[in-house]
């Protein structure tokens, strides 16, 4: 009743932790059995190790948080060596989130990751607002995003999901461009660019000045984008942005997402993913829905 099939991903259920909010599963895996998850999206991998931004890296806002982690990660080779073998023990599709500053970084990182048998799909993070050079440009210009998608598709042995930035005038244009370039699916949305100023220091709270806004505050923007994009593309969408409970998951599915990711809410409730997964069957029953896939896009299909 909860199973969902997407390119490269046979999901027991449509719920997976979002990239960057779950590291490589070790910490949350100490709290519960990761096998309950639909899939696991790993923290962004870059070609070289990155230390990321100076602290403070997070700040709280009304019903949201800003982060400027800056893609800290040990680099693709180290991830392949240290993290994948441990994760291979789980019966769980692994999605590798890929980031970079240059197109070539993305291509080479994707090539390496997609060659790993444990990796089921790639998620191209073309939209991380916290990387200074590159990154953001890929995410805001349709032609550039399309070119990047095509280049990665050419080398990838696994389906490629492109994760779009909401900080654009025309999200549908971005989505259509990467679909035409060969993307197998879309992830919507990454964080909104925001800032908070500390009244005591009179300076931005984050050392990086700006950060990515996530959490419940952005849910209406995410739902709108999933609703608009899902009507214009024929590839599946993994929806995210502010999901806290099973009702939110259903709202994303109704909007047009085929599966969802949960980010910030893990920090609030470390058991949020298993809690949601456990709550879904009852919700579906109350709605008279036998197969969760029936809900996808119902808000505009009916």
């Amino acid at each position: 009743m909860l199973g969902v099939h997407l390119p490269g991903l046979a999901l027991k259920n449509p719920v997976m932790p979002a990239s960057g909010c779950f590291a490589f599963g070790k910490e949350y895996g100490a709290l519960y059995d990761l096998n309950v998850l639909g899939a696991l999206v790993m923290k962004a991998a870059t070609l070289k190790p990155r230390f990321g931004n100076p602290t403070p890296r997070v700040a709280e806002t009304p019903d949201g948080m800003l982060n400027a982690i800056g893609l800290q990660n040990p680099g693709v080779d180290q991830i392949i060596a240290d993290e994948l073998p441990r994760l291979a023990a789980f019966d769980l599709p692994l999605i590798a989130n890929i980031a970079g500053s240059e197109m070539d970084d993305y291509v080479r990182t994707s090539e390496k990751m997609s060659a790993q048998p444990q990796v089921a799909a790639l998620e191209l993070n073309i939209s991380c607002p916290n990387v200074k050079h590159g990154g953001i440009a890929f995410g805001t210009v349709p032609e550039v995003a399309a070119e990047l998608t095509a280049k990665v598709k050419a080398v990838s042995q696994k389906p490629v999901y492109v994760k779009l930035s909401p900080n654009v005038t025309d999200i549908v244009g971005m989505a259509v461009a990467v679909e035409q370039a060969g993307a197998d699916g879309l992830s919507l949305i990454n964080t909104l660019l925001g800032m908070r100023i500390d009244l005591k220091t009179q300076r931005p709270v984050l050392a990086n000045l700006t950060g990515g806004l996530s959490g419940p505050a952005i849910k209406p923007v995410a739902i709108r984008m999933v609703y608009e994009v899902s009507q214009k593309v024929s590839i599946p969408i993994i929806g995210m942005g502010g999901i806290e409970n099973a009702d939110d998951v259903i709202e994303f599915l109704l909007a047009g997402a085929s599966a969802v990711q949960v980010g910030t809410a893990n920090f609030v409730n470390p058991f949020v993913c298993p809690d949601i997964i456990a709550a879904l069957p009852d919700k579906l029953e109350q709605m008279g829905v036998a197969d969760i896939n029936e809900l996808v896009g119902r808000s505009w299909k009916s």
Partner: protein
Amino acid sequence: MIQEKMQITAIRGIADQIIEMKLKGTLSNQVTEPGQFVHIKPSGTAQNGTALLRRPISICYTNKEKQELTLIFRRAGIGTEQIAANQPGDKLDVLGPLGHGFPVEAVAPGGSAVLIGGGVGVPPLYGLSQALTARGVTVTHLLGFRSAKDVFYEEAFAALGTTYIFTEDGSRGRQGLVTEPLGELSFDAAYACGPLPMLRAVQQLIVDKPLFLSLEERMGCGIGACLACVVHTINPEDKKGYRRVCCDGPVFRAGEVELC
């Protein structure tokens, strides 16, 4: 580490904007070291909104027979204001115990330790002092506060060992910085918790004895997954190059990580 709805058994103001709160639950059984902390989901009403993220608060001390944690925190913003608005009997969603605390085994029984604290860095030193004295270690406390109205637990510390209180304005104890007596004291190891400038000063003064520092950073997850709370290591050969305050710390041996 568990997530538990812990019951507030007592909550009261003990100094200006400073709250002492006792929480009952099985989480307390898991506390292994003084200086560990809990990550609390604020519930309750505040003036300017409600908090989304959890708030890290050090465990002041643990009473395992009563399955009770004592925390001391300052009303600093929305989250702590919400927590402070609770009543005995209310429950709080607590994740913990988290992190690595102060190593008491750094001082052998019969040895001596100096504990240096500033402001809301003072609370975890109380549990540390209990553990050290229980081990037969002689403790000296150097505790700094802004002003007389901010001082708390003076007698409680004094019952465990020599205690010097410092205030910035001299309105209680001595005027000046907690680091002043350090030159005259002899001890086997030192432990410090407080604002960064204090930690830096302590680190400059104590160079030939084991010194353990408890750090603060803004946190997301509190369990090591989000990398919000990282600090650089000092050793350029260190493979990772960083530590997470939430799970590798919050207590580090002096010299392990940068204080900036």
